[in-house]
């Protein structure tokens, strides 16, 4: 299948509401056909604004948005043929589930039998057959959510937008819905643009994630790369947990640099530092630091245990290491568990490739 890699294209899009502050700055983003892309970022980062511009409820202040090669900035929302799942589902409370699903078909003047068929298909997709005559208020949150998804898909739109659709659900339901939406996407191959501020949601569901901050895409890559190889300290901080050291580069080679902290020196992987004397923040994932490492690692230090918190599948250990008492370790729960006691000294080691020297915070 010749999938269009630029099915949705944001081309140098700027957006400002008041003419003073740019909410979205020079956005350049290509979304491939059939892709599940997530816009992830803290609130106020411009992700929802991007979605609204794509849906047609906001107009770009500058730049163009293209859908399948056509500029859509001047097309009103109802002619764009983009399905949308809203934050609070936005089911029509005075219509039954059937009528809700039939709405996009009726306004398109689809024939009655065809509507019945499509509604039935959409409902079976979200496993809600038999709920046709219920009113939205008679459904649980998860069911309403599924109706909203079915409604956004029932008229076979080319693109479906989802604006934090799982925000109102409790944790267990949210997780199961994540898989459900992911499976629906996989089975029908529609292009999905998903907005969330929940990083685990983004990591679970997406083909690619665009991390937004301050109106700009900080990094656009697949979940694994995003987690393993953040390109700047915001992404490192925002995705997953992260130990940081602030310091100054005192020596730099091709794939290694020496960073001077307040009272010691560590080796790190130079990502966004280029020369000696630059300030940097070194980021290290908690699970990459090991206790009493058996292999030879190029960073080896001794720290004092400050706190031990049992988390079931793992134990979090807070250490005082290299002058900072915020160093976190994650110890998986296994049979060969170590005895971890507060105020004991332990040996910690990590590879310099995992310690990424990024832009200073």
């Amino acid at each position, binding site marked *: 299948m010749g999938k269009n890699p630029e099915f949705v294209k944001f081309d140098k899009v700027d957006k400002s509401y008041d003419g003073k502050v740019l909410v979205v700055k020079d956005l350049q983003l290509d979304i491939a056909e059939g892709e599940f892309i997530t816009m992830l970022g803290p609130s106020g980062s411009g992700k929802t604004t991007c979605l609204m511009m794509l*849906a*047609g*409820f906001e107009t770009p202040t500058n730049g163009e948005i293209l859908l399948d090669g056509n500029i859509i900035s001047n097309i*009103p*929302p*109802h*002619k*764009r*043929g*983009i*399905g*949308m799942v*809203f*934050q*609070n589902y*936005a*089911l*029509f*409370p*005075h219509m039954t589930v059937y009528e809700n699903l039939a*709405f*996009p078909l009726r*306004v*398109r003047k689809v024939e009655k039998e065809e509507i019945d068929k499509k509604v039935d298909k959409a409902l079976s997709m979200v496993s809600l057959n038999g709920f046709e005559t219920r009113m939205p208020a008679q459904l649980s949150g998860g069911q309403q959510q599924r109706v909203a998804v079915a*409604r*956004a898909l029932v*008229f076979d739109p080319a693109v479906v*937008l989802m604006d934090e659709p799982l925000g109102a659900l409790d944790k267990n339901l949210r997780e199961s819905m994540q898989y459900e939406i992911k499976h629906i996407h996989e089975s029908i191959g529609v292009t999905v643009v998903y907005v969330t501020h929940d990083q685990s949601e983004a990591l679970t569901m997406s083909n690619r994630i665009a991390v937004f901050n301050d109106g700009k895409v900080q990094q656009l890559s697949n979940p694994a790369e995003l987690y393993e190889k953040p390109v700047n300290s915001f992404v490192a901080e925002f995705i997953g947990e992260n130990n940081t050291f602030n310091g100054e580069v005192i020596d730099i080679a091709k794939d290694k640099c020496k960073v001077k902290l307040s009272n010691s020196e560590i080796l790190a992987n130079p990502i966004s530092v280029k020369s000696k004397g630059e300030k940097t923040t070194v980021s290290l994932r908690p699970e990459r630091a090991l206790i009493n490492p058996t292999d030879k690692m190029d960073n080896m230090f001794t720290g004092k245990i400050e706190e031990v918190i049992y988390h079931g599948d793992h134990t979090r250990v807070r250490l005082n290491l290299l002058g900072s008492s915020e160093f976190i370790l994650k110890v998986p729960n296994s049979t060969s568990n170590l005895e971890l006691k507060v105020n004991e000294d332990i040996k910690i080691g990590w590879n310099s490739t995992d310690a990424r020297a990024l832009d200073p915070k």
Partner: protein
Amino acid sequence: MSSEIKQILTTDGIPLEVSLKKAEKKNKIKAFLLVAPLLLFLIITYVFPIGEMFSRSIDDKMITNMLPKTFKEMENWDGKELPSEEVFTAFYYDFKVLVEKQEHGKLGQRLNKEKNGFNSITKKLFRQVKRKKIDESISIKEQVMKVHKRWRNVEYWQAIKRTAPPYTLAKYLKGMDMYYGADGSITQVDEDRRIHRILWLRTLEIAFFVTLFCFLMGYPIAHLLATLPMKYSNLLMICVLLPFWTSLLVRTASWMILLQQQGVVNDFFVMIGLVSDDNRPEMMYNKVGTYVAMTQILLPFMVLPLYSVMKTISPSLMRAGKSLGGTPFVAFWKVYFPLTIPGIGAGCLLVFILAIGYYITPALVGGASGTLISNQIAFHMKQTLDWSFASAMGLMLLTGVLVIYWIYNKLVGVDNIKLG
């Protein structure tokens, strides 16, 4: 047996239901005490006056108490020919008591309302009784009949008999331009004297159109209020509520200044050349004035319920409607409008009920063709002092409102009304 099984006991062995009632009794008493002042207030100021109004509107006991012996004797009278000697005698003794109490005048007035001509013949009879010209030892019938020829006319005796029941619906019939004819049947008044029916219809018509105008103007305002950013919507809300803070009389008076023939609006029309100076349209002392002033005054009652309902409608619903392919109009008509129906219902009912009993504005700007039934009620309260008729019309108005409410409930359902 089955009920015994169902009964659940507490750990102390008391049935759960009894225990629950005991536990909640205190709360119930507290709740009742909290509403008691209001309940008392309502009974004193609402239920009791309405009951009083009702009894006054049907009360016809005065004459029943004045002629007790007469009516007792009249029970045996067929009402076709002149009554017997006994009836005349009873009437004479009743009348004599009234003369002693100096209440004969009241009787004459009351009977005169029933049939013209009673006033003069009771006066004549009074003079005879006063001068003790009637000899009680011979036939009283003959002597009374000699006082005036009308006492020989059976129609006058029939009129007396008609006043016998202590209760009457005559006032209600009068409110509908009908009366009891000589033979006791319900008759329509002559066509040129049917003023009440015109007033009822006009009241309904004006209330209907005022409601319609309020709806047409209030809906967009309420929508704006609900969707504008806070700082503008607050300002607009003040504009809507500002008339509320002004006295009703002041508002009506200012409409008089605006609408009169030499008023601001007419001046403006002349200035822009819409009408010529010597042909200024009359916008006051007719229906136009009533419509304009009442619509303005009742507008907040439409806007506020609509606003409170619209405020709860999430803007994402309209967006959903549009993103699913509905044009803005379809999204409005199929999604937004049906959700505002509870507000429309509440607003319309409120405005209609207020309009149907409106008094001060039509009285001031209505003129002859713009007065309503409430003005007629006030007229009878203050001018003719026929309070029982005013009460009857007031109750008819109240019944009308209740009927409208009932119909409304059947059509829209009171559960669908939302006042806030």
